[in-house]
């Protein structure tokens, strides 16, 4: 085996280890939600999980501007906060993509256009994305009263709002607000892959 081949093998092994490490961060139901602090929002202020301590449930949604699937869900997120905010649910949208269309100034524009009624945060370090194991936009994580993961995955069963039959996220919130465990706790997320760097 030549030195070059050895180096290539070593590199491949290191890559495999790093990839395995990334997967190890994936959350499971019932595990404490990763904390986050000092993530800038479209209000230019730092935000952290502790800011929402009063909320009965927190919904962390990984989303972004450029992804057509994420865009298709924007109005549904606004409607969700409108319907569930009074019941003690706080939705927090987080973008970790660093594409030009996903930068903070573009996030501000989008939030204004669509009338976002929830915080929209930007973590250019992408740490929160890694911590939660977010794969795509949109990818949701519901945090219960003890800030443990109670539901994760898709918002509902169809990108086309008019064709939705199962409102997975709303169903999970309804169950949790009623003090029950959601009947489905993981529904396969789908959308645009998050561009980790």
């Amino acid at each position, binding site marked *: 085996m030549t030195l070059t081949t050895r180096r290539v093998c070593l590199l491949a092994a290191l890559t495999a280890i790093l990839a395995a490490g990334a997967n190890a961060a994936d959350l499971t139901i019932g595990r404490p939600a990763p904390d986050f602090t000092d993530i800038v929002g479209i209000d230019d202020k730092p935000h952290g999980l502790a800011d929402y301590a009063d909320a009965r449930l927190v919904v962390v949604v990984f989303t972004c501007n450029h992804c057509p699937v994420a865009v298709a869900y924007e109005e549904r997120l606004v409607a969700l906060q409108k319907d569930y905010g009074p019941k003690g649910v706080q939705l927090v949208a987080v973008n970790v993509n660093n594409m030009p269309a996903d930068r903070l100034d573009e996030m501000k524009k989008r939030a204004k256009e669509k009338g976002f009624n929830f915080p929209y945060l930007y973590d250019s370090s992408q740490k929160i994305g890694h911590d939660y194991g977010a*794969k795509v936009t949109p990818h949701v994580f519901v945090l219960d009263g003890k800030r443990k993961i109670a539901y994760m995955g898709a918002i509902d069963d169809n*990108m086309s709002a008019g064709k939705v039959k199962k409102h997975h996220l709303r169903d999970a919130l309804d169950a949790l607000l009623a003090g029950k465990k959601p009947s489905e706790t993981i529904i*396969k997320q789908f959308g*645009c892959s998050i561009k980790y760097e």
Partner: protein
Amino acid sequence: MCRLLHKRRYWVFDSMSDSRHPITNVCRRHTECACYTVHHVALPLLMAAILVCSACGRDSRPKPLAEAPLREIDAPALDRLLEKHRGKVVLVDFWATWCGPCVEMLPHTVELQNRFRDRGLVVVTVSLDDPDNESAVRRLLGRHGATTENYLARYGVGPEAFAAFRFEDGALPHLRLYDRQGNLLRTFAAGDAPIDPREVERAIEKMLPRLECRSPSR
């Protein structure tokens, strides 16, 4: 790559059919062959050469089609399709019109089919679009001259589709490469890193027999 471009005539030996074909310098662009010259080729062979060239030197760049054929599919039907193609190397490209990187990847996928069809590659595209969006899928495939086997997933765009086809990361594009025995050899998933079309091509090429060129005197 044909190195002897200054010569006028070449032979190509097809190891799959165990036959030898004369080809003309029109075939110089055919990158799969190392070619050898011959100095005396009879007229009928020259005619044959032109015919062969039309196949072996085929321009692999996709040409637009008026409309690409498109059929509906689900996960069990895809498994049956893979079974039907046993004996061929099969590339499945899962894509969608709403997925930017997929649309960028599509022409590369079509080109792979054009380049490697004669060497035993079958390319299947499966679109994860809303069935109501069928005409847009057909148009886009047509624009890219997709002579691949084209399907539209019957599930619509939602978790059912991503679970049925077992996309761990829930993202597109997603390509799967199967060997002649139907075993899944490689997966190219967008969730890991952007897919490099050259890497897909290299993986395919490794699995296909080479069209070997031999001297006619052998």
